[in-house]
């Protein structure tokens, strides 16, 4: 803060000309093809798409777990090769270490960085306090509810101060009520931190509610079908999900996804499905809706 130079904003993700295929007995299988996406510093971007479209593959490539077959992934101009604490990740399966207490889980990244014990204990306590979890610091994850586990997961990913936060269907395993609460918590946290977020989900409401921009992917092999800005005002509240603006966005995105889901399910039902779709879309041309 006292620095004379103003720090350039951090967390610019750039995925260029990206494709990823893997070997199988029938030859190379394209998982993702010809994809360009970017996340501006401090921006919240979601990727939605039918299951199996490669959205998680894309996220895993940004995390550094998978190498692109062609193209490049960069964060602030530096090519990603391999996972790093710069890119925090939250997984659907919580992935807390069962043998560590809540606080030890949060401390993990700081410990890896070589921070002395007393210092990282203090840091972890502060963070847990912000997430309302200080009472559970000595609990083992097994004793927490799903919502609490994922809060710990998010806090743990943020503890090292990453440039970007990657979330892979983080609320997918939660029940509907808890999911709504978690979305509110996440949007509040993001509002405060202004960290760049890349968020993968198949839940359209979730994507609209949280994001500044939503990428919609096609069925396998996945590529970007549409890029939809979400102009809803911030800070966001759950009540906005009833607004006509929200519902219009939802309708547009829904039809985009349904088209791709039907494609993913096979050609025969495609025509049938498309008939239903035109009926749905009556009175709202796609362009108008978006």
């Amino acid at each position, binding site marked *: 803060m006292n620095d004379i130079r103003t720090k350039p904003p951090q967390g610019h993700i750039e995925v260029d000309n990206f494709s990823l295929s893997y070997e199988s007995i029938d030859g190379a299988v394209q998982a993702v093809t010809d994809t360009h996406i970017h996340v501006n510093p401090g921006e919240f971007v979601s990727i939605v798409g039918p299951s199996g479209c490669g959205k998680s593959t894309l996220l895993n490539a940004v*995390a*550094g*777990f998978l190498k692109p077959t062609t193209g490049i992934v960069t964060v602030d101009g530096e090519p990603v090769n*391999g*996972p*790093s*604490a710069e*890119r*925090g*990740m939250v*997984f659907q*399966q919580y*992935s*807390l*270490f*069962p*043998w*560590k207490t809540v606080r030890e889980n949060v401390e*993990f*990244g700081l410990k*890896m*960085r070589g921070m002395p014990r007393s210092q990282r204990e203090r840091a972890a306590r502060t963070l847990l306090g912000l997430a*309302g979890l200080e*009472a559970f610091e000595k609990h*083992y994850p*097994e004793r927490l*509810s799903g*919502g*609490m586990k994922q*809060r710990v997961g998010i806090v*743990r*990913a943020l503890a*090292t101060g990453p440039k970007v936060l990657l979330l892979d269907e983080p609320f997918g395993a939660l029940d509907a*009520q*808890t999911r709504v*609460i978690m979305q509110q918590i996440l949007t509040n946290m993001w509002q405060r931190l202004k960290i760049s977020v890349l968020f993968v989900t198949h839940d359209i409401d979730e994507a609209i509610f949280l994001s500044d921009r939503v990428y919609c992917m096609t069925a396998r092999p996945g590529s970007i079908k549409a890029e939809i800005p979400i102009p809803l005002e911030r800070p966001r509240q759950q009540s906005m999900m009833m607004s006509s603006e929200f519902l219009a966005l939802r309708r547009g995105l829904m039809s985009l996804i349904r088209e791709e889901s039907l494609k993913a399910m096979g050609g025969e039902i495609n025509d049938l499905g498309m008939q239903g779709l035109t009926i749905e879309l009556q009175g709202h041309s796609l362009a108008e809706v978006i």
Partner: protein
Amino acid sequence: MSSSPAVLRQQEDTMPSAAAVTGSETVPAKPQTPAPSFGTLTARWYRLNRDRLRALAIGTLSLAAFLVVWHLLTTYRVVFFVRFINVPTPLEVYASFTKAIHDPKFLMHLLLSCRRIFVGFSLAAIVGVPLGLIMGRFKLVHEVVFPVAEVLRPIPAIAWVPMAIMLWPTNEQSIVFITFLGSFFPILVNTLHGVSLVDPVLVRAAQCLGARERSIFREVYFPASLPHIFTGLTVGMGVAWVSLIAAEMISGQYGIGYFTWEAYSLVQYADIALGMIAIGVLGLGSSLLIRGVGRLVMPWRSK
């Protein structure tokens, strides 16, 4: 309902007990309930531990029944396919037990067996656990070691006795070696299995938090495998005793296995049963010890 909406909204993420406490505070003041009497506390304790008490009572009864049957069979020298003519009665065994605990020679037999178990088993754990972890983590090591291990594993430790006598200069060393072999393979195989079951997402999570190979090994693979490692240690301890007793009976001069065999040669039948019971108690004790250590090392697994 007198609870406030705030309480309702919070409920999902607060502990149920916390919600219960807030709830009870809003209940109109009742006359203070007196501290529960000794009687109610006893009744409550009984209700909570009923299952355990039941198991304890039935266990005691079944042991007693075993002793009674043993007593009857031997006192009346039953011969019905199995011959109980020479089998000592429980009282004879008890008599030889009271004599034996004052006999330094008997204690030495016990102590020597325990020492052999301790050395052989510890060596097996010290070699088996790290080897299993490394084999599970590095493919090349696995590919090199696994075929050899698979060929040697089915050979019972007893079959190693002649070879062990040739390999090692002293009897003591060959017995410890056989004990080692008996426990080594269960420990190795279970550790390997534990590593193969480590959730890859946990490894990824660690990598995303900046963990390098070495830290991942120490912070993820090792603790995640601990439950299986302890299964291996428990099984290994059992096999260690089996191997030890066999080795002592064949090639030993001391030890509780030798004591039991010697009792047969010297026609001291009560001592045969005494030796067997001693082996049983030591085996039980050592496996309880491992279970206790396991509980200490893995606090997250106990309720």
